[in-house]
């Protein structure tokens, strides 16, 4: 700075002027605003993905589903039982009865299958309760039924 442009002592008669806030503090504040917004979006997306997962269903609790599988002539049938969208599966006993434990609460689709053919049933499972689906009749799927 040339001498003639340097401040005179009169400019400091009332002491040193307050120093301007450092430039980095404003930038620093904005960085944290951006981080907070991104973190909120991140947490939101994590929640959306979690709510879609099977783990979220466990939060609402599980129940037990029972029933009895019969064939077209109402004879007991040893069949495979599956709960769709879960890994839960079981096999009915000789008298056709079955019990599925740990089924997520809410509307569930139960598939009963025998020798490569299956039928889907709907059931509403209540957390901590036992739901009896009654008789589940397995009919052929290779050809149209009821005609």
């Amino acid at each position, binding site marked *: 700075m040339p001498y003639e442009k340097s401040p005179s002592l009169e400019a400091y008669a009332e002491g040193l002027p307050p120093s301007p806030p450092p430039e*980095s503090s404003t*930038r*620093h504040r904005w*960085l*944290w605003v*951006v*981080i907070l917004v*991104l*973190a909120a*979006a*991140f947490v939101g*997306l*994590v929640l*959306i*993905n979690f709510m*879609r997962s099977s783990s979220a269903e466990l939060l609402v609790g599980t129940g037990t589903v029972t029933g009895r599988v019969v064939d077209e002539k109402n004879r007991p049938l040893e069949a*495979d039982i*599956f709960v*769709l*969208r879960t890994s839960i*599966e079981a096999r009915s006993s000789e008298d056709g009865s079955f019990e599925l434990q740990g089924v997520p609460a809410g509307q569930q*689709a139960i*598939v009963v*299958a025998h020798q*490569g*053919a*299956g*039928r*889907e049933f709907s059931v509403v499972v209540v957390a901590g309760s036992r739901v009896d689906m009654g008789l589940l009749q397995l*009919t052929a*799927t*290779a*050809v*149209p*039924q009821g*005609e």
Partner: protein
Amino acid sequence: MARRSPSIVYAQAHIEYVLILALMGGIVALSLATTGTSVRDIYCTVAGTLADQPASCMHYFVEDFSGLDAWTIVNGNWRIENGQLCGGGREGRMFIPLSYSNYAIRIRVALLQQGNGYGVYFRATNFDRVDGYTFQFDPGYASSFIFRKWVRGNELSPFAVARAPGFNWWGTSYQIAVLVNGNTFTAYVDGNQVLTGRDDTYTHGGVGFRTWDASQVCFDDLSIDPLP
């Protein structure tokens, strides 16, 4: 008030930038997972917007049946005859794995020579005990086009049926297309829509073929493409 040294301020700013980049990366990954979009989809969309669609973006999979190396044959009597895939005479299933959710399956030649019909699997996983769906060209099911759901290798009653009693099922080659879009599936024969069905059990998976009973069928020129 103690002033932070410039080196500390500099280091802290770096940490903040790293945090922002990490959060952005996480958001992108979660957004892709949430919407079912693949990195390939984004690349192809961007590339298609900027210039002509790259050849690699035109198809997810193309098969001219010069061989069966890409396929997982679970069972059946599948073979290459005159450059076509032929199968039949008993239950037969073969698959190619895909991780996509939505796609268009196009088969230029599908010729049922005899028997009760054939099926085209989509969104198929766990091939040994298949979960997924089939579109079935199914004269054995009271002359119908049907969509079935498969659970651990078991076929369920159709969730969509279209009767076609006067249809010429045997001895004619047809072009088959199945559009798989969200929970809605649409089948076309020679460009004509023959069946629509809805189900939301399975979200993604591969494609395959199925024969059963005494069916004899040949296919040629399969492509699996992104939806238009």
